[in-house]
């Protein structure tokens, strides 16, 4: 019974998920549980399977077996856009913004599924179309303000710096109003100041907006400061889970990271 109630308290449950590409087992029997309101980090050396796990949750990759539950709904087999509409936001590791659009349009496009008007209304831009566009623009403006993007609102994303693009990537995911946000290496390639800003934004998103955050990150300082729970993947397998303190003292984790240095 104890196990059942523990599982029920998870917002996102990954159970014995495996994925392989050809012969390569990208992840093997990985299980984890994320509680609502947490900042939950996933770390591990390059190629450990972290992004692959996110892609399984988002429905971009299909797990060979296992189960992924979000609020009790099985995600495996569901179309990616349906999974997103359940409230799972995603900020990509390699920036995947819509290159031809401005910052504003990128964020607005993340709100498409919140707008219900149809083609005929759109063609005449009348009634519910105009109302919903204005209402969603309002919400997007809140996100723009939240992440201090006011000055680049109308800028095409391609002309922004790398650090800014990363921030827009996060903003776009947040604009979906997700219940849980999957953030893949938000500070990679950033300078110190940008890293600190990003850390602040992640904390604010978690605390003020109450969004659960699942974070993949190589920056140990950031992971240790922010997370409540940390899971470590190595060669597609989960080797440890615990609080930041427990993880930094875990001999197997140390070995995985030191081992990586040597090879």
């Amino acid at each position, binding site marked *: 019974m104890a196990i059942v109630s523990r599982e029920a308290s998870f917002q996102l449950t990954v159970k014995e998920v495996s994925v392989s590409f050809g012969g390569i087992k990208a992840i093997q029997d990985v299980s984890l549980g994320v509680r609502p309101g947490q900042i939950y980090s996933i770390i591990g050396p390059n190629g450990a399977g972290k992004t692959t796990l996110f892609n399984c949750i988002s429905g971009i990759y299909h797990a060979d077996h296992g189960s992924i539950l979000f609020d009790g709904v099985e995600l495996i087999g569901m179309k990616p856009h349906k999974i997103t509409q359940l409230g799972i936001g995603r900020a990509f590791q390699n920036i*995947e913004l819509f*290159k031809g*659009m401005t910052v504003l349009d990128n964020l*607005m*496009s993340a709100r498409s599924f919140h707008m219900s008007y149809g083609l005929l209304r759109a063609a005449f831009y009348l009634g519910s179309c105009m109302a919903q566009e204005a209402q969603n623009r309002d919400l997007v403006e809140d996100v723009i303000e939240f992440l201090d993007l006011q000055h680049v609102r109308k800028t095409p994303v391609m002309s922004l710096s790398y650090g800014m693009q990363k921030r827009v990537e996060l903003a776009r995911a947040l604009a979906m109003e997700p219940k849980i946000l999957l953030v893949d290496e938000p500070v990679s390639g950033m300078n110190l100041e940008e890293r600190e800003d990003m850390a602040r934004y992640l904390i604010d998103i978690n605390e003020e907006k109450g969004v659960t955050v699942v974070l993949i990150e190589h920056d140990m300082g950031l992971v240790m400061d922010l997370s409540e729970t940390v899971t470590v993947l190595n060669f597609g397998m989960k080797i440890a889970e615990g609080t930041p303190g427990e993880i930094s003292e875990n001999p197997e984790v140390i070995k995985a990271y030191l081992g990586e240095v040597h090879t």
Partner: protein
Amino acid sequence: MGRKFKTSYQQDSALFQNLWVKSWLAIAIVVLCVLPFVLKPYELSIMNGIGIAVIGALGLNLLTGYTGQISLCHGALVGIGAYSTALLSANLGLHFLVSLPLSGLMAAALGLIVGVPSLRLKGLYLALGTLAFGFIFEYVILHWNLTQGEMGLAVPRIQFASFVVETERHFYFLILITAALATLAAKNIARSKIGRCFVAICDRDIAAEAMGISLTKYKIMAFGISAFYAGLAGCLLAHYQQWIVPGNFDLMLSISYIAMIIMGGLGTVLGSILGAGLITLIPHGIVYLTDAFKDVWPGLSGLIVSFKLGVFGLVIVGTLLFEPRGLFGIYQRIKVYWKTWPFKY
């Protein structure tokens, strides 16, 4: 917050954003209304050709320019619109105002079917799939007795009560009104969530899905809208020509539509209009030139048809090489130049 910004948001997404656009629009409207009273019938017929092409090009641009889905059967969908209205108005006696939307819907229905392979195929494979649809269409209208094969169909005149649409000037206004409405609708669709979903799919389809956008729904919708526009263009063309044959809707027509949107500017409404204008003018320009040189080089006029294809090919390749954003790109550069004049930067 928010409420107080509301008026400024609406200005943001307004159809015509600034004085520059508004003044050009006003000039264009005045010119378009004066033209039929100053142009000769031959020149008006060119304008009518352009107007019909604008409608078709808007549709193809929503599909190819905005959504990034290639189609080599746009001409066939124009043909479906044309044959629909010919059959509906001759056999069932439907009024033009009824057969116009029906032709659009007929083409849209087939467009939806053409769109299904796009869920699986991309790029070259999709091009081949749509090409096959074009050939099937040609085969069917050539062999189905309802469409009378090579001989083609007569298309009844359009009549509003006792008023018969017959002169170039009558058609001019009919086509102008339809094209203006089609442009307005395209512009609105482009700035709505639907337009954003189209561009999102074109730019990065995996990210679009991860943002909750259904690829199936919006790709199929793009094919449907695009075909609807093609159907409207075909319906007008049929009534305007009064007689349609399968040869009107061959691969050449599809390719000229592609040339229009590439030349004009992919993913822009204005580009569709500019491109439709230019590509429609080119054959007339060629005829004009061969006429001028007919004494010097009499054999030239026999080459017109192959000439046209070659010129379209050159136009497409040239645009892609020198100004990938097409006429729209040139327009934007001129605009920036004048706005910042006399400062160069």
